[in-house]
Every structure is written in structure tokens, then in C-alpha cells.
């Protein structure tokens, strides 16, 4: 299977899985503004997932469209990062997960705007404008909650510490990353690390939070080796189309 197809699945699955996670907050946000914001971010990510997966289906050339890829693949065929499938937890967990992802996503999309593949470049140029608002929002919440009460501060530090081991996977380069980077299709995975880390350290510093020094890490999502959380998420995401294939309403 082509490297580009695999790479597009990674892009699309990150957006799809995170969108599904955020959508679970709909009607349950801690404040109306937060509820609206999270579901709007979820909608942006879902739109991006559709664009990436549609193109993935075209590149694959086996007649699978965005729906077939989203609803018809098993967990082992998903290529999202482990971070985005980690549970929503309390609101601080969701905010921390979102900020760490948004900061990386923005750097990645900025790189993809220069892709040698014009379709990838135009999707990235669309998405990067949306993600800029995502990261402004999640960074602002990190700062607000980190500087809030002793309890909110402690919870944010715990959340960052818990999620930190899932962030290094993004900067690992495997054969698919290397192939796409050498073809100019995507920036090298490792090339995003310095800018991401600088943004994260700045915001954590403003939030009064400590950047973890823990260096061990979890990996596997990009190759389809997932945590137990993905299966449950896909059960909810895919139920209708698995039970009633092709159903429309």
C-alpha cells in the first residue's frame, strides 16, 4: 500500500478520533461557552477528517470513500496517534490533551501547506486557519486553569504529566514518514519537535506549570497498535453503519 495513502490515514484518523472524543462533551460542558467551543472544534476536525479521508480513498484507488474508511475499518487499521484516543477524563484532561495536540497540529499543517502534492497543500491551507483558533483557545485555557485555584493547578499538572509520554510518538520517523518527507509531500516528523516544544514550554510557563522531564514514551498508534480505548470509541462511532450498512437519513 502506498506511503501516501498511509500518511493520509494518519492525518484523517487523528482528526476523526479527536472529533469523536470532543463530540462526547456536547451537552456536558462545564459552561455553555465551553460546550459550544468544544463542539465547534469537533466540527472543524470532522470537516478536516472528511477532506483527508476522501483524498486517502482516491489515492488508494479501491473505491473506498470517506464513509467506507471512517466506518468500515477495524481498530487495527486506524493510524491515529495514541494521544487522541486517551479518555476525555475530567475537563482538565480534555483541555491538556487538546492543547498538546493543537500546538503540534498547527506546526504540522504549516509544513503541509508547502506540500509538493497540491491537494494536500490546499487542504492544509484551509485547515491551518481553523487550527490557529483552536490553539489560541486551548492555550488560553491552559493558562487560565494553571493559574486558577490550587485544585485546578494540581489537576492541570497531573493531566500534563499523564499525557506527556504520548507526545514523543509524533516526532518518531518511520518508513512512511521518511518516504513522504523525501518526496516533499510532508515535513519530516522530527522537524516539528523544536517549534512544538518551544510553544508548549512558553504556554506551560505562563500557566505556572512544569514541563515534564520524563523521557520514556508510548508508541504504536501510527502503525495501528492502539490502547484499549480506541475499540470502545469506534464501537460508538461505527455502530450505525456496521448494523445497517449504507444507511442514510
Amino acid at each position, binding site marked *: 500500500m502506498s506511503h501516501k495513502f498511509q500518511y493520509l490515514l494518519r492525518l484523517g484518523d487523528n482528526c476523526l478520533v479527536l472529533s469523536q472524543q470532543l463530540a462526547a462533551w456536547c451537552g456536558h460542558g462545564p459552561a455553555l*461557552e465551553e460546550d*459550544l467551543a468544544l463542539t*465547534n472544534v469537533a*466540527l472543524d476536525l470532522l470537516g478536516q477528517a472528511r477532506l483527508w479521508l476522501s483524498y486517502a480513498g482516491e489515492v488508494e484507488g479501491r473505491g473506498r470513500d470517506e464513509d467506507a474508511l471512517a466506518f468500515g475499518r477495524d481498530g487495527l487499521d486506524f493510524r491515529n496517534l495514541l494521544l487522541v484516543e486517551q479518555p476525555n477524563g475530567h475537563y482538565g484532561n480534555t483541555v491538556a490533551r487538546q492543547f498538546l495536540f493543537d500546538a503540534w497540529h498547527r506546526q504540522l499543517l504549516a509544513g503541509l501547506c508547502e506540500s509538493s502534492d497540491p491537494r494536500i497543500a*490546499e487542504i492544509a491551507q484551509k485547515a491551518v486557519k481553523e487550527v490557529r*483558533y483552536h*490553539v*489560541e483557545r486551548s492555550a488560553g485555557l491552559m493558562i487560565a486553569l494553571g493559574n486558577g485555584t490550587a485544585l485546578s493547578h494540581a489537576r492541570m499538572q497531573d493531566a500534563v504529566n499523564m499525557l506527556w509520554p504520548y507526545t514523543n510518538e509524533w516526532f518518531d520517523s518511520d518508513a512512511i514518514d521518511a518516504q513522504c518527507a523525501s518526496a516533499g509531500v510532508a515535513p519530516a516528523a522530527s522537524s516539528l519537535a523544536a517549534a512544538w516544544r518551544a510553544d508548549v514550554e512558553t*504556554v506551560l510557563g505562563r500557566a505556572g506549570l512544569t514541563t515534564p522531564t520524563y523521557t520514556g514514551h508510548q508508541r504504536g498508534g501510527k502503525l495501528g497498535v492502539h490502547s484499549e480505548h480506541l475499540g470502545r470509541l469506534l464501537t460508538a462511532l461505527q455502530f450505525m453503519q456496521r448494523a445497517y450498512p449504507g444507511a442514510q437519513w
Partner: protein
Amino acid sequence: MSAAFVAQARPLASRETILAWLGEVMDPEVPVVSVIDLGIVRDVRWQDEAGRASRVPSLLVIVTPTYSGCPATEVIAESIRSVLHAHGIDEVEVRTLLSPAWTTDWMTPAAREALRAYGIAPPVLRATGADNAQVIDITALTLRLSRVAVPCPRCASRKTRLLSQFGSTACKALYQCNDCLEPFDYFKPH
């Protein structure tokens, strides 16, 4: 048969006429601004008949989505088709184009004024060019300040504050006026 007859009997509508018709199609989420004034319709043109099986002339309408996940996109395409059908154009193809990406800079002055009158503050900054800050302003985030004053659409006060980066839809932020105390939507530069 009737469609082909109409096409032969009447000259094809001009581009200006078609754009005027599309000026009747409102954005379903901001029903005071048309898809023309928002800059969503990028082009209209009659398709080359060469190679087409049908002899009925086909109109191509090129649209661009405001946001990737904007749920209004499909409704807008449907509204465009139905308005054109009502004006006697049977064959309409609505094609989505992503590039160049839609920007609020394409909104017409009329659209900006219509938004304000409707209670939505129009974008203050241009999204592209010199005043577009691509860097994240950490100081502004800490203080929850916006980069520029967004005037209240009700009382025109410039003493307003950001409540949330996202309002009733992804394209809007939520603000509050410190003078008249009313919350309002702000159409974000994008």
C-alpha cells in the same frame, strides 16, 4: 424535451444576471448575508458543450466552503440549485473548490454592514496581509485581550471583551460589551 426547447428559445442568461439571482441565496446561518456578499461563490460559467451527451446547456457554479466542517455548505449548494432551477436553468453543477481558501477579506462592504445591523460585529482585521498575526500572542492570551478592539454592534462602544473564541458557529467568537453589557457574536477574521 421542454428543457432543450427553452434553451434553444432563450439566450443563455448572462453572468451578471446569474450572479444577481444568486444574490437571493442567503447563508442559512447568517440569513442577512447572501452567498455572493460572503464571497462563497467564486465563479459561474456555462460549461463547454463539447463531449456532453445532453444538448441542454449546463451551468457550473464554483463555491468554496467557509470552514472545513461548515454544515451550511450542503444546504447552500442545494439552495443555489433550487434558485437557478426556479429561473429556468435545469442543468446545474455546484463544484466545491478549496483553494484559494475562503477568507473574510472577500466579504463585501454591504455584507459587513448587514452583519452589524443584524447584531454580529464584522471582522475588524484583515485576515491576510500585514496585520495578520500568525504568531500566537501569549500576553493577550494571559489577559484574555483581543488583539484589537471589536466595537459593540449595538452601542458602538469599543470597550468589549472576548468571552470565548467560539460563538454560535465556528466562524464567530463570543464577546461582551462592557458598556451596554450585552453579549454579541463577532465574525472572526479568517
